[in-house]
């Protein structure tokens, strides 16, 4: 089963998301990168070792925008610049609801933009929807298709 990459520096948020995913019944392995640099390093490693079966591309990336070192937007930009990651599903998960951020994220190639939920029930509901839509309903490009572009 392909992993989910969670790029999030806030430990509380990591905890809430893990719990909400469990509650929503998401069973994919979760890899957490606590800043943009880590996320890029992780993805670079997967591309480099793509022949290795133990490191498949993530099913999706849940990307926070406010990150130390490399900003979320820059991570997104970097991802879209990599031929192998061009079709990777990236969902922005941010506390920002500013139009400028939303517009910029879509311009850089985000697949979805979700504003962080204020209450746990809402977060659980959000994760359920992600599972149903992005992990089950949505047909994503295969690894091979992604790499060949």
């Amino acid at each position: 089963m392909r992993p989910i990459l969670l790029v999030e520096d806030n430990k509380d948020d990591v905890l809430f998301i893990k719990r909400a995913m469990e509650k929503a019944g998401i069973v994919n392995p979760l890899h957490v990168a606590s800043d943009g640099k880590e996320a890029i390093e992780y993805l670079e490693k997967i591309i480099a070792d793509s022949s290795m079966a133990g490191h498949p591309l993530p099913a999706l990336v849940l990307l926070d925008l406010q990150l130390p070192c490399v900003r979320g937007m820059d991570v997104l930009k970097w991802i879209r610049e990599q031929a192998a990651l061009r079709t990777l599903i990236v969902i922005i998960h941010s506390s920002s609801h500013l139009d400028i951020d939303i517009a910029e994220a879509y311009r850089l190639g985000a697949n979805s933009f979700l504003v962080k939920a204020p209450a746990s029930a809402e977060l659980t509901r959000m994760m359920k929807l992600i599972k149903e839509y992005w992990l089950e309903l949505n047909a994503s490009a295969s690894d091979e298709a992604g790499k060949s572009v």
Partner: protein
Amino acid sequence: MVASAHDPSRLLSAIIDSSDDAIISKNLNSIITSWNKGAEKIFGYTAQEAIGQPVTILIPEDRADEEPSILSRIRRGERIDHYETVRRTKDGRLLDISLTVSPIRDEHGTIIGASKIARDITEQRLIQNKLRESEEQYRVTLASIGDGVIATDEQGGVTFMNAVAETLTGWKKEEALGKPLEAIFCIVNEFTRAPVENPVAIVLRKGVVVGMANHTMLIARDGTERPIADSGAPIRETGNGTLRGVVLVFRDVTESRIAEMATQRLAAVIESSDDAIISKNLDGIITSWNKGAESILGYSSSEAVGKPITLLIPPERRSEEREIMAKLRTGERIQHFDTVRVTKNGKEIDVSLTISPIKDLSGQITGASKIMRDISERKQIERDLREAKQQLQTRAEDLENKVRERTARLQEMVTELETFSYSVSHDLRAPIRAIQQYADILAEDYGDKLDDQGRAYLKRITSSTTRLDALIRDVLTYSRVVRSDVRFEPVDTERLVREIVEQYPNFQAPHAEIEIESPLLPITGHEAFLTQCLSNLIGNAVKFIAPGQTPHVRISTERRGGMVRIYVQDNGIGIDPRDLDRIFGMFERSAPEQKYEGTGIGLSIVRKAVERMNGKLGVESELGKGSLFWIELTGAEVK
């Protein structure tokens, strides 16, 4: 002369015979009674031939009537002196005769005849005629002279004046003759106006020729004044040189005086000019040099005249002179040519030259006149001006740089502020969200392990965090309204209101009844701001409702001149009149907090947004009877 025929005095007879004059006597019948040798010589008849003949033999036919009148005068005892007439000789020649006829009386005094003394004046006549002719010739000559001529006798009385003299003095010759010269020829000094001694008087006194006097003004009879030049010369009798009079010759010098004055004035202008005025010949030799040239260039006239003009030209500009001369030779004039010249002490000065060719009477170019103006000062001013301009530009650039710097700093501040709001939004809300969620998790996962009191506390945590989150969101909204750029564009109010109502479930049935009084008039403003205002106002309208009642909100518009007023009327709890003034203030609340959730910022946001759209807002309300909020904005054309 009285003669007696009865006086046989030899002496008398001898005198009579020796006279060259014809001495004849006749009786009252005009018969010749005596005839002397003189008569014989003049008339050709001998005494024998003449005596006894009528005197008429001597009288030409055309003068036949003279004899009776002479006779009748004699009879009356009159004497006729020097009566000039014509008589005929024996051989028929006509002679000019001067007659003196006297009556002859007898011893009783009775007139018995007449004696005639006849002098042949033919020769005298001839001389007289010649004299007259010559005199006439002189007269005509004098009359035709271009100068005025007046002659006087030795007393200074006018004896002659010619036509020019008549014109200049205003006196007719006929009137002037015999008058003293001073009366006719009135002269004063041109400048002092003191009477000038008449040249005639001087000549009469000194007996010498008096030359042309200067600055004499002749005042004519009618008061006309003319500058004249005059001279006087004595008239002397031929032979003994006795002074017989003076001839005065004078001339109107008005014309020449004008020309002279013009020349003088020109010379004065040139001398007094601050510009250097220099002339040179075609060889480039300086021929004249005025005071201005002296003061500008330092050389005196005597130092400069005769020297080559190149004296004044800096070595590196020598070629200019050749070009100037070449142009002048074609008759061209050079105007305001700015260049540099050297003074006597070697200083280079900025000058402006105007050079014109000088032509002689035949039009041949003989040289050039140069007018040279010292423009050092002007050039200095120009340089100063340029410098000032440069400085101004530098200052302007400095200012621009400063403005740029400040703008940049301001921009930086705005960016910082945005970053600040951003971090407020993110960093401040993140922990709130965490508290909220931990409280949620506690309630969800451990709720059954807490008692009612514990669960109530958890609820209090949740409501506090919710309120804090709303507060932060509103503060951010307010600050965004304060600093965002305002765009003015037509906004379809009705569409906007409908969208807002659709967006909020609690604006819809069964939570609320929103009545829109179509059509709502469009306004000109910033759509995002208007959205904020209307959602806040409608939000308040549905929120502040008495328990158990359904909010009823009515939205309408009204045109007021160029403005449009948007009304939001509710059936809510109303506002205490004491609070009406302060409800638009930040964190001000009218309704009791425990009953109605709110941050107290909503109306501040509305007020700020309306202000930024150059609008007005207001409220009418009564406790228990609902409120009517309105905002007034510039209207827009209906699309």
